[in-house]
């Protein structure tokens, strides 16, 4: 059995301005054809892709792409075929030279550097994983994995050791001496991944790595990548045509159309606030309960203090805030929730003691809990307590808000 997947497994706290930038594209353009600079002029005059093709016969691959990827982030570029995403990723390691713009890897501009400098960047900083695996059929799995090291001039013993370590990480150590065609598709792509890991590059470019795999294996590989990423903390640029995959993996997602970034943001930002109809059409099929977390529906943690509040003051607070229930805290500890109904009954029957009306069996969640995990918690009717790492009350989710968030904006 698969455990239910969720989009927000990795905590998305790392925004690029808080971390070191590993990859930065500054206004990258790519024109394919015989007179790229003329075409570029026309493009800057505001001519459309089709008009430029008619005038010059040149095709616009990528236009004005700028982005920053911070260390340890997964940046997903999502687009349909022909959107320029594969061209874009190949400009990051210089397999394709941009027509204009800068592509900075740490401090090296790979768009405008010597062949030697480019090779140095490829050897030490960037590894790539390919859609159809691109394993060398004449080499064993171990030799494939060690290829990047061989290019660097690492000795045979050292290569073998590192290749085995990388294969161990993807669970294929036993197949080190097999040939690629003896492995299944999923295993071959694990070898492709191990080849990327073995070179010890900090940046991993993944060009639709799971597209050629069966859906179930694809799911496994996504899980495995996230699992590995938790310990490796590589900077990953991941290309896909599948928004679902983008949402599962991406810390940030760029949606590409006709060579242009249509929208860049987190999964939540894109689903919650699509930039245009094109993005909205994609996000319509996304399961919103897996994209959004409790944090997106949480409200301020208005709570009663056991030492200060009484049943009467609690009733007054609830009426003022318009809520049916509130949490009661004792300093930092959460004692439980009190419901308006119970308090009213308690005042009527025995003069009202706040402490006696507290329900200690209350629903709890974290800020990062996806909404679909809140369904059972919301059934009790009590607000859900959002608890931070120290166990303090950080916010409250009203049950009706959980379901309200699931309605798509068009339906609302």
């Amino acid at each position: 059995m698969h455990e239910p997947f969720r989009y927000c497994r990795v905590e998305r706290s790392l925004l690029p301005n808080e971390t070191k930038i590993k990859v930065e594209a500054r206004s990258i353009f790519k024109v394919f054809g015989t007179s790229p600079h003329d075409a570029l002029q026309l493009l800057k005059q505001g001519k459309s892709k089709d008009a430029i093709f008619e005038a010059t016969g040149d095709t616009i691959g990528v236009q004005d792409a700028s982005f920053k990827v911070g260390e340890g982030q997964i940046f997903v570029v999502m687009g349909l075929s022909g959107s320029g995403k594969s061209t874009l990723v190949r400009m990051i390691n210089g397999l394709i030279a941009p027509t204009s713009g800068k592509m900075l890897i740490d401090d090296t501009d790979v768009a405008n550097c010597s062949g030697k400098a480019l090779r140095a960047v490829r050897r030490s900083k960037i590894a790539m994983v390919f859609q159809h695996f691109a394993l060398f059929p004449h080499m064993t799995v171990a030799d494939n994995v060690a290829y990047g090291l061989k290019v660097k001039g690492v000795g045979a013993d050292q290569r073998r050791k590192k290749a085995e370590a990388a294969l161990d990480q993807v669970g294929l150590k036993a197949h080190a001496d097999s040939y690629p065609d003896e492995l299944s598709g999923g295993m071959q792509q694990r070898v492709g991944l191990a080849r990327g890991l073995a070179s010890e590059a900090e940046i991993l470019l993944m060009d639709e790595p799971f597209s050629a795999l069966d859906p179930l294996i694809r799911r496994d590989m996504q899980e495995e990548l996230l699992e590995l990423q938790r310990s490796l903390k590589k900077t990953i640029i991941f290309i896909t045509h599948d928004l679902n995959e983008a949402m599962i993996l991406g810390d940030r997602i760029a949606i590409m159309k006709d060579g242009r970034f249509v929208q860049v943001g987190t999964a939540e930002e894109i689903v919650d606030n699509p930039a245009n109809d094109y993005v909205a059409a994609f996000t319509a099929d996304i399961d919103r309960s897996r994209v959004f977390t409790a944090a997106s529906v949480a409200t301020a943690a208005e709570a009663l203090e056991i030492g200060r509040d009484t049943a009467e003051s609690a009733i007054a607070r609830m009426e003022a805030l318009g809520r049916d229930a509130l949490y009661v805290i004792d300093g930092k500890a959460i004692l439980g929730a009190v419901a308006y109904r119970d308090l009213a009954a308690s005042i009527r029957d025995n003069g009202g003691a706040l402490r006696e009306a507290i329900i200690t069996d209350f629903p709890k969640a974290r800020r990062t809990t996806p909404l679909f995990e809140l369904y059972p918690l919301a059934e009790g009717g009590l607000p859900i307590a959002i608890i931070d790492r120290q166990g303090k009350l950080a916010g409250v989710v009203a049950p009706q808000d959980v379901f309200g968030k699931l309605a798509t904006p068009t339906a609302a």
Partner: protein
Amino acid sequence: MFSPSDILTIPLADWVNSFVRDWLVPNFRPFFRSLQWPITQVLNGLDGFLNAVPMIAFTLVLALIAWRTAGRGVAIFTLIALAFIDMIGLWPETMTTLSMVVTAVLFCTVIGIPIGIAAASSNRFQTVLRPILDIMQTIPSFVYLVPIVMLFGVGMVPGIIATIIFALPPIVRLTNLGIRNVRGDLVEAAQSFGSTRWQMLWDVQFPLALRTIMAGLNQTLMLALSMVVIAALIGAGGLGLTVFTGLGRLDVGNATAGGVGIVLLAIILDRITQSLGEPARMRKTSLRATLATLFSPKRSGRDGEA
């Protein structure tokens, strides 16, 4: 009736005559003669060696090679064919022809593979090269026998030079094709890990193109064998000479014997070089495994893989 030659006649034959006789030969004869030197060395060494090795020893070694590369059937064929050649009295001629052919193919490989690699990495060079290869393949070999004799003289080595010109195109073409046909993403993968051009050629492109290159080598070898009789026209010896003298004297018997010798040699060399082009992994079997296959009642291995 009007014809274009009423206005203008082009003395092409005279031009070529004056170009070759009056300019090329007097000025460059020493240069062309010096080109013979490496060929002469290789040929003499090989010819001396092959003629010194006892017939039985050579036959067994070639049969062993055939067995390890092409299988049991070819090995048995090699034994019978070489024995037959010896029995019809053409052993020395066959060895001479073999050394000529091997020398020609060796030089074709040394010249052709680098040219093929260069053609694969430059479209412009390929465009220039293609018509030259077309001319080399289509021009009747008799046409260049005359200038070759004028520049190099007569004998074995000029015969080999004519053979090289005739047999070179396939290995160039198929090296070019083989390298160009290496999957694009494999080349990208090699590049993305920072390979130099040389590393990529050596580790990725050449091994993956090897099958196609071996097919080119096979073609080159076959063409070289087919030149044996023509090379005899300008003084090369061997089986070609047997056929050629047979032709001159209307001696059907000797011509046929020479022809049969050439055919048998061709079949042996063809089968061995063809199987060299098979993926290396399939051929890497131990001697013990091969022996086991040989003596097991059912032939497993090769037939299943083929």
